[in-house]
C-alpha cells in the first residue's frame, strides 16, 4: 500500500505496520501507567523489561531513552510518553527532546506561535535546508 504520508518530514505515522512492530514496546510503555509497575521497573529495569518480548533494538532504545528511536521502531508517542512520565519528564519536555531543542527554547517557540508549517510540509524541503 502506498504511504504518501512517509513524505512528511520529522514524523513517524503510527500505522498498522508500526503498530505490529511496536506492539510489545508499546505494551511495556503503557504498563508504566500503573504505580505498582513503575515500582517494579525501578527496582529491576532489566527484569521488568524481560516480561515484554521486545526486540534487542527496542530494549536498547528504552535503555538509551532514544525517544525518536523508539518511534522509529514502532513506538507510539502516547505510549512512550508513559516512559517519559515515569522518568519525571513532562510531555512538553519530551517534545523538546525529540526536536533536539532545549526545553526553554522549545517553550519559547510554542509561546511565539509554534513551529511554522512553511518549510515543514515535505521531506524535500528539509533536504534542501
Amino acid at each position, binding site marked *: 500500500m502506498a504511504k*504518501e*504520508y512517509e513524505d*512528511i*518530514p*520529522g*514524523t*513517524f*505515522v*503510527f*500505522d*498498522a505496520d508500526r*503498530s505490529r512492530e*511496536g*506492539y510489545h514496546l*508499546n*505494551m511495556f510503555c*503503557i504498563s*508504566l*501507567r*500503573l504505580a505498582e509497575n513503575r515500582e517494579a521497573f525501578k527496582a529491576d529495569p532489566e527484569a521488568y523489561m524481560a516480561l515484554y518480548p521486545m526486540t534487542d533494538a527496542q530494549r536498547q532504545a528504552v535503555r538509551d531513552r532514544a525517544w*525518536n528511536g523508539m*518511534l522509529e521502531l514502532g513506538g*507510539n*508517542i*502516547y*505510549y512512550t*510518553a*508513559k516512559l517519559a*512520565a*515515569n522518568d519525571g519528564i513532562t*510531555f*512538553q519536555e519530551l*517534545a*523538546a527532546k*525529540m*526536536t*533536539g531543542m532545549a526545553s526553554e527554547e*522549545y517553550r519559547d*517557540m*510554542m*509561546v511565539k*506561535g*509554534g*513551529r*511554522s*508549517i512553511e518549510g*515543514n*510540509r*515535505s521531506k524535500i524541503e528539509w533536504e534542501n535546508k
Partner: protein
Amino acid sequence: MAYVKAGVGCSHVPAIGVAMDTGITEQPYWQPVFKGFEKSRQWMKDNKPDVIFLVYNDHCTAFSAEVIPTFALGCAAEFQPADEGWGPRPVPVVKGHQKLASHIAQSVILDEFDLTIMNKMEVDHGLTVPLSVMFGDVEDEWPCPVIPLAVNVVQYPAPTGNRCYQLGKAVRRAIDSYEEDINVMVFGTGGMSHQLQAQRAGLINPEFDKRFLDLLTEDPVAGSQITHLEYMREAGSEGIELVMWHVMRGALNEKVEEVHRHYHVPASNTAVGHVILENR
C-alpha cells in the same frame, strides 16, 4: 421527542485540565486560554443540556494496543476518570445515560455503523477536559449525564472525515427517534493543529485551523472531505483528531450559526480551538 439544538467543538489538551486542577488558570500563560471560555460557561447555563453526547479519543488509557475499536459507545451507568500515570483527575465520576445510549447503539448499528459497545470503560482527559472547560469547576457531580463516543485516532487510519460526518447524521436520527423530551447537546473534541512526536513536534498551523472552523460552519460537506494526508501534513500528526468534530457537525442541522469562536496558541504543544454552533 429528544432533540439537538446545538453543538460544541473543543480541544481537550491535558495541560488545560492540569491548570484547572492546580488552580493556575489566572497565570499569564493560561489566562488567555480560559478567557475564551467565559462566554461558553454562561452559554452552558443558559442552554443547559439534559444529556451530552461527547465524541473524544482515548489516549491509550481505556484501550491499550490490545484492543483498538474505531468507534466505541459508552453504555455504562458511570465512567470513572482514569489514572493516566499521575493519579486520576480530581473530578466527579461521569454518569452515563444508559437508556438513551442503548437506544443510540441499536439505532446506529441498524443504520449500518458497526459500533463497539462499552459496558465498562474508564475515561481520560479527552473526555473530562472539555467538560471542565465548558462547565467550569464543579463540586460533587457534573451538571448532566454524558454518553461518550471514543474514536480511534491514535493508530492510522482513523475513520475518514466523511465517515465521521455520516455517523453524526446517524446519531442525530437516533436522537430524533428517542421518545423522551430531552435536550441532547453534542460535543466534538480534540485538535486543533498539533504534533507531539519526533523532530517536527510543535507544529502549529493557524491558517489551516481557521479554514477548518470556517468550513465546519459554512460548508460541512467540504470540510468532511479533508483527507488524512492533509490533516497530518498541514495540521500535524495529532491534528488528525479534528475528524471527531465532523461527528458533532453531522449531528447538527445543515444550517448552523456560529455563536462563539475562540482560538489561542499555545496550550502546551497545541493550538486551542473552540466553537459553539446553534441549529438554524
